[in-house]
C-alpha cells in the first residue's frame, strides 16, 4: 500500500463540490485535522455508487478534527473531537493546524 499520509500528519480537506455520490461530509470541507490512522485501501465508493468497479483502490484515513475548529460556537470543551473517514483524493497536506 502506498498511502500518501501517515498517522500524525496534518491534512486539509479539499474544498470542492461533491458531484454525485457523497462521502466527504460538507462540515469538514476546507477544514484541517490530523490523520488518526490509515484504514487501508478500498474501491472508491463515488464510482461504486454508479455500478463501476471503483478501481484502482484508494487509501482511506480516519482524520481527527477539533470541534472548536469545525464549529465557531461549539459549546463543549477545547479537547472534543470528531473522527471522520476520508479518502486520500479528498486530502491535501496542511501547513499546520490552526491555533
Amino acid at each position, binding site marked *: 500500500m502506498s498511502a500518501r499520509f501517515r498517522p500524525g500528519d496534518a491534512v486539509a480537506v479539499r474544498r470542492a463540490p461533491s458531484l454525485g455520490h457523497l462521502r466527504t461530509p460538507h462540515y469538514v470541507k476546507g477544514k484541517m485535522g490530523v490523520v488518526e490512522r490509515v484504514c487501508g485501501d478500498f474501491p472508491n465508493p463515488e464510482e461504486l455508487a454508479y455500478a463501476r468497479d471503483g478501481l484502482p483502490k484508494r487509501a*482511506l484515513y480516519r482524520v481527527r478534527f477539533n470541534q472548536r475548529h469545525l464549529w465557531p460556537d461549539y459549546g463543549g470543551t477545547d479537547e472534543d473531537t470528531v473522527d471522520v473517514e476520508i479518502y486520500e483524493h479528498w486530502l491535501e497536506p496542511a501547513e499546520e493546524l490552526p491555533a
Partner: protein
Amino acid sequence: MNEHDHGHPPDQGGPMTHYQIMEEALRGLLIEKGVFTAEDVRREVEKMDARTPARGARVVARAWADPAYKERLLSDGTAACEELGLDMGQTYHLVAVENTAEVHNVIVCTLCSCYPRNLIGLPPDWYKSRAYRTRLVREPREVLKEFGLDLPGEVTIRVHDSTADMRYMVLPARPAGTEGMSEDELAALITRDCFIGVAVPRAEAVAS
C-alpha cells in the same frame, strides 16, 4: 369480547409510500428474474434479526476480563469477534474505540445509518433520524444529556462519523463495583446503547 392487556393500534392499511412500492416492485422483479428466491430474502432477514447486542456484550466482557484480548480487539475488531466464534459476514471492518476515565466515545453516521449491524444487529430508529445524525456531530454534549448522560468537562468527547468502510463499536469502561464478577455477569451489564455511546454500563446496586 376478549380482554387482554395490550392496546391495539389501528391496522396499517393506508397507502404505501413511494419507497415501500419501489422495494416491493424491485424485490418482485429480482425474484421473477431468478436473481434470488423469496426464501433467500426471508433467510437474510432472519440472519440479521438473530444478531443482537448480546453478541457484542460477550466481546466487551472478554475485553474487561482479559487485557491481552482487549489489545487484540482494539487492534483488529473483526478478528477479535471472530475469535469468540461470532460470525461477522464477509470482509467486515469493525473498529472498537475505548472509553476511559478521560475519554468518552460516541458513534454516528451523518450520511446514512452505518452501524455495527454484523455484530449487534439493527440500529434503533432514533439512530437513523436526521435529528440524531445532524445534532450529534454539532452538539454532542447536549444530545448525550438528552439520553441521560451528563459528562463533566474533564472528560473529552470523541464523536466517530462512519462515513466509509469502517464500522464502530464503543468499548465501554468497566464500571466500579464489578470486581469478582464472572464474564456472564459482566456481559449482562452491557446494553445496545453502550455500543453507540449514548449510555454507559453501571454495576447493579449492591446491597450493603
